[in-house]
């Protein structure tokens, strides 16, 4: 069965582009439009095996979602990669400390993103 990846981004084009790249690599993809939507989906779908998470989003940003999901305990091991236009070291450190597995700077290279997902899902 294909592993399921949740793509959380307020940009429909980014969700689509990430989704298509992952689908072509054989993954099943579900989408969320912001952090709050993402938290809800992670909480209700135990088959989600990974999260690609934007940082700057309305309602709940990506770092808040990361910290919420990881604090929940149930999904503490769920691998999360941050995908953002942000590149500040302090933010990267905050994500790392919260339990993120990776940080990709937008605009991303689809091939490298897929390679990172494969690597983390195999590990």
């Amino acid at each position: 069965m294909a592993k399921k990846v949740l793509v959380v981004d307020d940009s429909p084009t980014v969700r689509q582009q990430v989704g298509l790249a992952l689908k072509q690599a054989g993954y099943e993809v579900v989408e969320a439009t912001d952090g709050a939507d993402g938290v809800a989906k992670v909480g209700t779908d135990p088959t989600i095996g990974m999260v690609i998470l934007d940082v700057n989003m309305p309602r709940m940003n990506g770092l808040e979602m990361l910290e919420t999901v990881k604090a929940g305990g149930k999904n503490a091991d769920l691998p999360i990669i941050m995908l953002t236009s942000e590149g500040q070291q302090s933010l990267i450190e905050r994500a790392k400390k919260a339990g993120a597995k990776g940080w990709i700077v937008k605009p991303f290279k689809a091939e490298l993103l897929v390679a990172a997902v494969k690597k983390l899902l195999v590990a």
Partner: protein
Amino acid sequence: MTLSVLETNFESRSDGAVPKRLARRLADGLAEFRTLLMQRINDVNATTSREVILAAGSVAAVVDGATAHVRRVKEMVSSIDGHDGGGVAAAVARQSEVLRRFFESVSRDIARQESASDRAQQSLQRITKAASDTAHLASAARLLALNARIEAARVGGHGNCFSTIAGEMQHLAEQITQANEFIDSVAARMSKDLPEVALSARALRASSEELSKDLSLATAEVERETDGMRDVIRRMMEQSDHEMSYLIKSSHEALSHLQFQDVIAQGLLRIEPPFHELQIHQATELGIEDVIAALPKTQHKEIGGDKPVDQDNAGEVLLF
């Protein structure tokens, strides 16, 4: 940002302050401009977003179409050359082998029939000889009958018993002769038929062996052709996989390039926060701070604040 232009234009007032009514009109104008600007930005972003989604969808459709095509070709190839032994080529080879074995079996049966015919011919020769021997017995019986009659005539009325013996011997000789004639006729027919049976059996065996040989050659040819076909298919599939990888790579590149829309959209939305700041500054400068609370909040907010696109680190992947 300062509003030095406005300040310069209104320095003509004795206290240097801008009249409240004019200040509010300026603030309203700026607010209207902001609304219009954001409306235009949202329109542009919606349009480009829609177009980019369609373009990415087209790219994906090409990849999906090619993937489906390759899958169908692989299924077709698998039905012709199934590695699980279920392919057409394998079935043809199996059928050829079954036929070859069948004709081998037929050849063995015919050889046995040939051998039986030979033995039957030998038996017939022995029967013919035995019939010839019994013909001598019939002659002897006739001679004995003649002698018995002569003896009966010589002794007169006392020779009745010789006469009876003579009659029986004569009857026996006739029966033997009849049996011999029957055996001779059957032997003659068999002598004529058996060589023909043996000859047909030999011809049939030769044909069968020839056919079996041809089938072996055909089976070997089918196997050779199958091997050749497998090689062609393997190369074709390798080429196909290579082309699919290239297509997916190209698709990934296209998806990467299409992110320009998000970069532009984000860039355009980043105009709003400084604009908001400009309005606050303007209101403060013009002494109409009360309008600040009514200003609409910015749609776009970034944790890292206003910044240019990070070209140097774009695409960088950090795994922890």
